[in-house]
């Protein structure tokens, strides 16, 4: 079970996931709302259930770019709305699960892969959310907002590319 678990963890680390989780983590940290990790986990569980129904093609990658762009712009504006944060966290969790379909032959291995992806996603989100509350100096807080603008710009560009071509 260890190998599929590790494969699932590794499966999480693609740029689209990292953009979304990066922006969401900064948003959660900026608002000091660690409780938003819960809707993220719930969203992941919901997405995993949908995957279990053998859904194949989903617009999860596009949704993740939209989430990254929105969360990034909220970081830039330092707008820490609990409602928006909860919605984005749930949506991001679900979209990451849908975008990480386990490539396994047995059900236990598939569950282990999804579990691995969930652990990697949650740990990365928690790690990034840990940063903004510790960015006490003004230039560090500005740095967080600058990174938010970078994430938004990257996500918008790729989103445009996907929708245009």
């Amino acid at each position, binding site marked *: 079970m260890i190998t599929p678990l590790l494969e699932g963890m590794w499966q999480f680390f693609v740029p689209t996931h990292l953009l979304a989780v990066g922006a969401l983590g900064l948003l959660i940290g900026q608002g000091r709302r660690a409780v938003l990790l819960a809707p993220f986990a719930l969203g992941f569980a919901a997405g995993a259930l949908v995957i279990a129904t053998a859904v194949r093609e989903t617009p999860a990658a596009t949704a993740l770019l939209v989430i990254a762009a929105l969360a990034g712009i909220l970081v830039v504006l330092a707008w820490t709305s609990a409602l928006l944060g909860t919605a984005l966290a749930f949506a991001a969790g679900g979209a990451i699960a849908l975008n990480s379909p386990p490539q396994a032959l047995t059900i236990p291995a598939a569950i282990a892969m999804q579990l691995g992806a969930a652990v990697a996603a949650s740990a990365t989100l928690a790690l990034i959310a840990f940063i903004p509350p510790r960015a006490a100096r003004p230039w560090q807080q500005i740095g967080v907002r*600058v990174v938010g*603008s970078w994430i*938004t*710009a990257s996500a918008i*560009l790729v989103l445009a590319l996907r929708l*245009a071509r």
Partner: protein
Amino acid sequence: MRRAALVLVAGAFGAILSGAPALAHTGESGGGFVSGMAHPIFGPDHVVAMVAVGLWGAFLGSPAIWLLPIVFPLVMAFGGVLGIIGVPMIAVETGIATSAIVLGLMVALAARPPLWAAAALVGAFAIFHGYAHGRELPDGANAVAFSAGFVIATGLLHVCGIAFGVLSRWPAGRCAVRAAGGVIALVGVAYLSGLA
């Protein structure tokens, strides 16, 4: 604790930068990131304009020092979308060269317009830079890593400008920063006139 936070920031950046493809995934590759990083860096007209944004921001002080580098990538993304969807735009290269001239002159002349005017000027030029990048954004698997790479490279060029621009706190540094603005404007003239 602060050092730990910085290490975490660096770690998070590292994770994003080295985002590698999973075997079961759609083929997104960290390899596109390096190409994206190189894209603005190997365009000297882009480089000098980006550095000028940072220089001018540092010269103007807070809040321009952070507002301009935030405005630029966001508006650049809008310009990139125009390029991607194929909206016709004339004189893109002229606009890029002009951005170096105007932003360089702003620094050289120690211009201090209102913040909104500085942001509008930087934003207007960002559209040309974004458009040029958007036209060259690779389709397919590496697009996310590529775009993240060139947005971050653009931001780091701003940081270089800001770092140098901070010298303007001292009289000699102020002269050096204004001289750098003059050099940037000259580079822009060379591109506009076809000498470079």
